[in-house]
């Protein structure tokens, strides 16, 4: 059974300021808690198999394998190779978006105006797509590696006619979601406002990252048994580590 977060198994923690971006590797058997410190955060995220970066998070495969259009506890993040990159082992939020993409230079300037470094120093306006490109560049990757992302802490639901609805105030201060990594995963993050967030002010919120050693999941694991598809997804994943 994989272990919950405690002071004894913690590896590191870091606070990503609002608008900040970062990338790092999480090894199989480690976990990451993402905490919305102030309320109203959005964390744009992409995931890659760090040993073979052509293998990456696949939104359609994640959704159709688990018959869902949103993410919460129990669901896993599938790669395009039928393997599980990470499992959502705990979640106080209840809905994370993966269908609405990320902000870009045009959308941020249109919504909040252009505020550059010369004017505002590190309070400059950043956008998610350029932040992801900067982080991907650190690993020799680029535009071709950008695929539909996860927006942790954000809810976008569709009505019967397919109309999209962003829910303001969805995530509260202290809300968190925990990811257990089932492979060695390159994690790329941007703490940027959701592109459908109607707030007219540029106020991206910070996110606290806390990593720990949790161990691999056993046969009774919640995410493994959440759906029959996931049993096969974990089987495919574990073949990599035999």
């Amino acid at each position, binding site marked *: 059974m994989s272990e919950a977060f405690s002071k004894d198994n913690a590896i590191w923690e870091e606070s990503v300021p609002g608008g900040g971006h970062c990338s790092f590797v999480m090894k199989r058997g480690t976990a990451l808690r993402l905490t919305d410190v102030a309320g109203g955060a959005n964390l744009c995220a992409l995931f890659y198999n760090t040993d073979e970066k*052509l293998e990456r998070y*696949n*939104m*359609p*495969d994640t*959704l*159709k*394998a688990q*018959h*869902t*259009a*949103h993410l919460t506890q129990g669901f896993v993040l*599938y790669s*395009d*190779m*039928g*393997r599980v990159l990470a499992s959502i082992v705990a979640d106080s939020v209840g*809905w994370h978006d993966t*269908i*609405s*993409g*990320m902000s*870009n230079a*045009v*959308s941020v300037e249109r919504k909040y105006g252009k505020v550059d470094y010369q004017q505002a120093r590190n309070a400059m306006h950043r956008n998610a797509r350029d932040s992801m490109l900067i982080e991907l560049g650190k690993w020799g990757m*680029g*535009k*071709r*590696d*950008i*695929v*539909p*992302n996860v927006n942790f802490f954000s809810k976008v*639901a*569709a*009505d*019967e*006619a*397919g*109309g*999209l609805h962003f829910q303001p105030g969805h995530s509260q201060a202290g809300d968190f979601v925990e990811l257990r990594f089932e492979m060695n995963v390159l994690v790329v993050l941007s703490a940027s406002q959701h*592109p*459908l967030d109607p707030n007219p002010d540029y106020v991206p919120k910070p996110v606290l990252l806390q990593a720990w050693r949790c161990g691999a999941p056993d046969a009774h694991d919640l995410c493994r048994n959440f759906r029959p*598809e996931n049993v*096969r*997804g974990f*089987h*495919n994943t574990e073949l990599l580590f035999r």
Partner: protein
Amino acid sequence: MAIVESKLKSEQACYEHVLPAGESWLHEVKRGQVFRILDLEGNQAVDTLFYNARDPQERYSAVDTIREQGNLYLAAGSRLLSSEGNVLMTIVADTCGRHDTLGGACAAESNSVRYAIDKKYMHSCRDSFLYALGHCGCGPENIPMDKRDLTANVNFFMNVPVTPAGELTFADGISAPGKYVEMRAEMDVMVLISNCPQLNNPCNAYNPTPVQLLIWDAAA
């Protein structure tokens, strides 16, 4: 679910091709040309990707397309946006009513997860996409393309309803023999199609069938 019929006559098309199920097709549609996909026998999913023909790093973005139109489903009037926020194609006619862009393409590996481990050896859209890319030199410099260039695609004629509670299902198709979707290229666009061979769910009514592809010049 606006139904918009086309005024174009098939005998005036400058290009016509019947694509059997399980085959791929990679073809440039020039700016201003109109491209039609005709569901000959009904309920046939047509997995489709679009690239800027001059720079294939700019490609169709499903999430930007649905976010900017505020709706999950593609229909007449939908503008298919690129990863750079430009319009690749505008859907100008559609007699089906709606098309999916969340369901992605079937692949050997995802079939093993979704249905059974041994389904890995069945033919899939991603194999068709990779076959086409493996045999092409793409773009002005004959740039090789590969799996890095495959992203979330459009599934024309496929019905993947999402509920307000956030569930997703593969439902019986709403297409029928003779239904079509037509789009105008807003830049020179490379179109990559896999005529879906999936036999494990109702997306092709368990009977994958051919589709007809037609192109008209801008003046037509």
